[in-house]
């Protein structure tokens, strides 16, 4: 579904309030009461190779008002249907052998090119299941796609933790303004 961001017209002096103008106002109110938003989650654990970027596959959409996510094709992506500025938050948790040294991170990346937010942790052998949270406000055009990107360089593969709500990786977003 591609919804246009609302635009309420300014009426001329003395002009009657037409049904068209009224209904554009109604559309604007309805749009803001249910603005484009999505909450994607991962229910199947995913390997995170060492020293290679990995995008989280979200196999479940807890919410997707615009149909911006396909759990079967490019499931890591939320593809923008309505242009505007979006607030995006993501959360991820990894587990695996964690020798000292190196770093681990989770980032919000757009169009596989630009990282807008990143949470980096130095590897700590005492924290066996590091968790990450990051947030950004991003201006986006129709067709842009947002993903959550993992990185770790422990030397061995790790996995995401996605076995319950308490461990599930997720990415949420909503339209904030034009």
């Amino acid at each position, binding site marked *: 579904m591609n919804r246009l961001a609302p635009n309420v017209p300014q009426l001329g002096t003395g002009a009657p309030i037409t049904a068209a103008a*009224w*209904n554009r106002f109604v559309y604007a109110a*309805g749009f803001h*009461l249910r603005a484009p*938003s999505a*909450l994607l989650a991962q229910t199947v654990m995913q390997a995170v190779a060492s020293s290679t970027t990995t995008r989280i596959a979200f196999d479940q959409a*807890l*919410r997707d008002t615009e149909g911006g996510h396909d759990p079967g094709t490019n499931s890591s992506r939320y593809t923008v249907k309505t242009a505007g500025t979006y607030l995006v938050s993501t959360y991820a948790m990894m587990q695996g052998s964690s020798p000292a040294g190196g770093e681990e991170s989770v980032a919000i990346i757009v169009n596989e090119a630009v990282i807008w937010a990143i949470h980096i942790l130095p590897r700590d052998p005492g*924290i066996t299941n590091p968790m990450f949270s990051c947030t950004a406000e991003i201006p986006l055009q129709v067709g842009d796609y947002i993903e959550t990107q993992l990185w770790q360089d422990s030397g061995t593969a790790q996995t995401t933790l996605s076995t319950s709500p308490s461990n599930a990786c997720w990415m949420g977003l909503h339209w904030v303004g034009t």
Partner: protein
Amino acid sequence: MPPLYPLPVPAGVNVAQLGASAGWNATMPPAINFLLHRPYAYLWQSVAQVLPGNSNKPLTAISLDSGVDNDGAHSTTVNNSHYVCQLPGLYHVVGQLGLQTPAISGSSERFSQLNITVNGNTPYASAPLRFDAGPANAGGTVQAAAYLQLKLGDYIELYGLPYFNPITTFTDYRRPSMFVHWVST
């Protein structure tokens, strides 16, 4: 001004429809007033809290004894760690935890953790907070954010996970705090 419930449903009109002002007043002002005053809270802690520490990693709800809340969703005195959903929908939540340590020595693992939880201690977002050995009152802060789909009566909390020994919250600008706002139906 608190949000207006039930949530308004703006109604369209037809060409040449009569009674426009009544329709307008019944639908549009409530809708716009709701959007201008959608549920929002900024809650924080003014009185320091000591989180007990032992190897069992006891999760502790963070008390939030002060705040701004336009929806009657929080009490500063009764279950003051809770933000109780008054309107179902999608919410965005940001939590912050600031902790200061007693003097630390030795090699025991030194980290804490902030959890954003719903209806108890099941976390939906977490972030670790690691400490180095150092003098008393050294500390740090951490933030986490979450999107939560809430039903009426669901409650959000922040939990702290102390690990190595008792640890005390900050109460200045590094204090624990929680920001909540309603996003959408």
